[in-house]
């Protein structure tokens, strides 16, 4: 049977500025989906940007090319990634006056 794992990378995490998720090893998998679920949202014109990064060692990172569409409301967003090597993470930023995003981030690997 095919292996699959849903990792909970962040639970009830507040983001107010730039961020990166913890380095996650995924060499065994061939496909991935990052989910960001915004549970709470505050501030004036809040917006969250996030993009997928890959790495040869979990320390040095490069943009993979996949980005989330601008997130500015409650709910679930996702991006799909394949052919990513051994490591994955999200790097992102928050814009807006007094902006706060409370998020859960999941990484689904198969």
């Amino acid at each position, binding site marked *: 049977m095919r292996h699959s794992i849903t*990792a909970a990378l962040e639970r009830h995490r507040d983001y107010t500025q730039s961020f990166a998720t913890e380095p996650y*090893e995924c060499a065994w998998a061939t496909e991935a989906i990052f989910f960001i679920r915004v549970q709470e949202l505050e501030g004036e014109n809040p917006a969250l940007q996030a993009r997928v990064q890959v790495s040869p060692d979990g*320390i040095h990172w490069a943009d993979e090319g996949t980005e989330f569409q601008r997130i500015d409301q409650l709910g679930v967003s996702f991006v799909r990634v394949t052919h990513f090597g051994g490591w994955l993470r999200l790097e992102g930023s928050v814009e807006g006056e007094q902006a706060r995003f409370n998020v859960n981030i999941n990484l689904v690997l198969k």
Partner: protein
Amino acid sequence: MNEFSHPLLLSGRYRPLQNILAYDDFNQGQCGWIDLMNNFVLEGHKPRPSIVTKHRWGPVMLSNANFGYAGTHGAMNGLYSLKLATRPEANPYEQPPAPGAMSMAIKRMTSLPFANSGKLQLEMWYAYTPEQDRAGIGEKDIRAFGALFDIQDTEHRYFSAARYVNSVNGTLARKWQYAQAADVTDSEWAYDTEGDWCKRGIDPVWFGKRQSNGDADSFKWVPGGEEVLCYNESDDKINWSYFRLTIDTQRREYCELQSGRSTYSLQGVQPTLVAPYRGITSLLNPVIWIEADTTRRVFLFVDSVLISAE
């Protein structure tokens, strides 16, 4: 059964008790080991307020032990191990653990359904190292690691744990401890806070005050438990080591701790017995963990775990 669990291969690296409850080789997936976290039962699935943040421990993942200069280590057998990775966070030893300063894997079981003598054992082959994000040797950045059983029978809940204190605020200690609570109140156990979910003796990995000499209200030193493990000479060279903790669930006592070729008798030593918690009678949860001593990710790689009873 897989290619790594053939009896001839197992007998060379494990000494299980008569009944094998679980042989978890992480070439086969996470085998039920998951991030240890708190109960998300409040409105909005928020955790209960506590002085210790328990929903941000570092993530557990399947690893091929990949390093920038060394390349892929793989596991002791096969390619994948279970990696416990802290976040780059730590408080001084004397303070409550910072959010993310530990990584903990838990497997949720219940007690053996067949008649038995009460002996219960956890064995594992493991390796530890910090993230190789700077020059030098990072051994002192790993505060501690260990394994435990969280057990509740019809009369008591208790934690039986062994902890290797590797480093205290940057000074190598390299000594084993076992979990046993000091004579403190529930409030003192929870760093002088009131109303925490926890009782004295429960969750010794993150509760119980610590002292700058490595002492802790939640752990006592194993007599003669000084041991220098094989760390190697660079953070990307990991050596697999053997760990065994054997306890007696009928007598509610420790039996023995083994680390490599060193064996420490804990015969007759009792864990701290606590009144049962609601809804978890028969609980049998093995837990493995690692703690960061500084603001640097540290990793515990677990090649495989064997849990057995008789």
